[in-house]
């Protein structure tokens, strides 16, 4: 959904953090290993040192034995013999220790065994020296041999000890070198890794602080828009509610409470709460459409009444939609409009409409009266007059005959009046069907309707090509008849009427005061004659019903013809104008929308 701001950085942040954590884990494992190695090497050094020590001890014990023995041989004092006797134990103890220390090293074990054999031989040589130095068994040559042999054995022992020490030292050196290599690699590497991790974390920090800023901005905007929303709900008299279908939690906007006639948040809404407010007439309908919304995902507008706690009835219009957000949870969004004012206005309008319909019906019945009931007696008067035969008239007095003919004229005039009035009212009340019509054909029809007068007055009608327009055909025909008829009627004495009809396309913006500006193009049709004309000061009043410029004895007429013309043009959303110069001619201009 669009209305949730998208924080893209959260994913990259996660990646940065995971990388940083891995680097740190790696660094700490390296450090642990390093520590481990240090420990090992110090242990190894200790080990070497200990072996060295023990070997030295071994050596010194043998030397002690040698010194003791020598002292004893020279002095024959038993006191000198005790170090010799102890040295044996010391050698053994050192030997056991050494054996333990070199248990994992086969070469050293072997060396140790050789050393041991040499030491045993040395002690055997000691015994022999003691034996041949004893005055009882003194043998100078053998003693010399054994003393010398002891000397050589001693050198061998020293050599062997040195060899063992050497091996240990070499081994230690090699191990230390290996560790040194391992350890010497890590400082640069680990510092760079650490720096990388630091950079990552700093990047993440920057991103977080940026997101935080953006969040703050969005939060502010949200606060503003939710405030505005609240305000607009109050002003617009509508409210919203959300129903989280998964959590089955319903939230009303503050104005929802107000529209229901209670203070905001005065209760916790559940599905049924709303129905409690709905008028009993509409309960079923509303409940049904609430269920339907979940199936259809959309709710067409429903109209119903609610009852406020103070028993006031308000009219509501509601709609809703099922929304699914990014996490896939379904939320039903509903909007309620309080349309009480509109509803009451509507009722008033309906009443007025009814009144209008009534008065329209009255008008129609007036029409009927005019067409039927008024005509009926008139028709009879005329028929009865026509029944007065010439023979009847012959026996009448002259004045009687005169009266009869005056009655006939008046009755005829009344008929014309009634017919014209009917025509005028029908111009407005009959159904208006707009049909695409060729105005040239309508003009021809009008001319043929007027054939007799045209012939009688020897009139000339020149018409340019007229357009095809969406019009009410019979009305336009009537318009043409009336306009041409007018020109024929008011011709100049002794001058044959000449009527020219022209048409051109114009744009409405050229006539801002006259024409409907919502329609762009109009056809301007002019009817120009060479008749007697009229005083231009009457160019507007001549379109008014029953307005006449001439006495009815000179020119019979009802003053309805041009009023009909105006009405017809108005029916077509057009305009009609008249202009004239007396004794030159008149011009009638009709604008009809394209």
């Amino acid at each position, binding site marked *: 959904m669009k209305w949730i701001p998208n924080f893209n950085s959260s994913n990259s942040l996660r990646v940065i953090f995971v990388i940083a954590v891995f680097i740190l884990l790696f660094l700490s494992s390296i450090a642990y290993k390093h520590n481990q190695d240090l420990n090992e090497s110090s242990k190894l050094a200790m080990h070497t040192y200990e072996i060295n020590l023990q070997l030295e001890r071994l050596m010194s014990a043998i030397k002690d034995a040698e010194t003791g023995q020598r002292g004893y041989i020279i002095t024959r004092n038993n006191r000198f013999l005790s170090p010799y006797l102890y040295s044996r134990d010391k050698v053994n103890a050192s030997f056991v220790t050494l054996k333990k220390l070199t248990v994992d090293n086969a070469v050293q074990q072997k060396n140790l065994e050789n050393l041991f054999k040499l030491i045993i031989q040395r002690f055997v040589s000691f015994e022999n020296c003691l034996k041949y130095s004893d005055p009882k068994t003194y043998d100078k040559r053998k003693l010399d041999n054994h003393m010398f042999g002891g000397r050589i054995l001693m050198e061998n022992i020293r050599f062997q000890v040195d060899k063992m020490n050497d091996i240990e030292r070499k081994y230690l050196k090699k191990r230390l070198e290996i560790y040194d290599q391992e350890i010497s690699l890590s400082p640069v590497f680990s510092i760079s890794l650490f720096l990388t991790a630091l950079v990552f974390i700093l990047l993440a920090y920057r991103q977080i602080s940026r997101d935080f800023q953006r969040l703050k901005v969005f939060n502010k905007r949200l606060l503003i828009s939710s405030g505005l929303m609240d305000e607009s709900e109050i002003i617009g008299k509508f409210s919203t509610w959300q129903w989280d279908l998964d959590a089955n939690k319903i939230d009303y906007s503050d104005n929802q409470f107000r529209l229901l006639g209670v203070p905001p948040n005065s209760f916790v809404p559940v599905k049924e709460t709303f129905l409690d407010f709905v008028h009993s007439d509409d309960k079923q309908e509303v409940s049904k459409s609430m269920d339907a919304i979940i199936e259809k995902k959309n709710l067409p507008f429903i109209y119903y009444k609610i009852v406020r706690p103070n028993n006031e009835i308000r009219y509501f219009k509601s709609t809703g939609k099922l929304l699914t957000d990014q996490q896939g949870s379904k939320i039903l969004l509903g909007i309620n409009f309080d349309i009480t004012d509109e509803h009451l206005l509507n009722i008033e309008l309906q009443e007025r409409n009814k009144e209008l319909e009534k008065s329209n019906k009255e008008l129609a019945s007036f029409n009927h009266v005019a*067409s*039927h009931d008024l005509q*009926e007696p*008139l*028709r009879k008067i*005329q*028929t009865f007059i*026509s*029944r007065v035969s010439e023979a009847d008239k012959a026996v009448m007095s002259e004045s009687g005959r005169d009266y009869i003919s005056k009655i006939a004229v008046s009755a005829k005039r009344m008929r014309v009046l009634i017919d014209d009035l009917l025509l005028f009212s029908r111009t407005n009340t*009959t159904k208006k069907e707009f049909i695409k019509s060729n105005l040239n054909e309508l003009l021809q029809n009008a001319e043929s309707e007027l054939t007799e007068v045209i012939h009688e007055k020897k009139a000339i009608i020149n018409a340019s090509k007229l357009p095809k327009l969406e019009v009410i055909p019979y009305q336009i025909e009537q318009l043409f008849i009336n306009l041409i008829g007018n020109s024929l009627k008011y011709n100049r004495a002794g001058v044959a009427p000449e009527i020219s009809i022209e048409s051109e396309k114009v744009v409405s913006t050229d006539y801002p005061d006259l024409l409907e500006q919502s329609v762009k193009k109009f056809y301007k049709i002019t009817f120009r004659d060479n008749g007697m004309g009229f005083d231009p000061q009457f160019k507007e009043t001549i379109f008014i019903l029953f307005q006449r410029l001439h006495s009815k004895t000179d020119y019979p007429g009802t003053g309805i013809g041009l009023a009909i013309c105006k009405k017809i043009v108005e029916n077509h959303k057009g305009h009609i104008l008249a202009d004239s110069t007396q004794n030159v001619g008149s011009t009638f201009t009709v604008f009809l929308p394209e």
Partner: protein
Amino acid sequence: MQKNALNILLADDDEDDRLFFKDAFEEIKIQTKVQFVHDGMQLMDHLMDPENKLPDILFLDLNMPKKTGKECLIEIKKTDRLKNIIIAIYSTSSSEEDIEDTFVQGANIYIKKPSDFNTLKKIINEVVTVNWHYHTSGLNRDNFLLRLK
């Protein structure tokens, strides 16, 4: 009663109109037998009575008490025995609505009551002498309303 005299029936509540009608028929000198009824009910009773001979032409006023001309027209056209009677609507009204309605309901011609006795004679002469078979087959909205040349 002559064998080929035309049987004419006028349904009109107006006494004067019936008088004009009767006089006009007397003056045109065509062999006809003209009968009158005063309202729609009487018209239907007359037509439904098997004793009465059916008219050749029925002149039917629209604005009549008890049963209007339009109601009678519909009833006649629904009744098999009557539906072939030539029906000439004879009314004061010249409203488009009346003309349209009666045309749709199957009337044969629409006559607007004239305001001159001589015109009435001409109209009656025209209606009585027209070849109805021919006229009916070519009937349309334009020639439904009778106009004298």
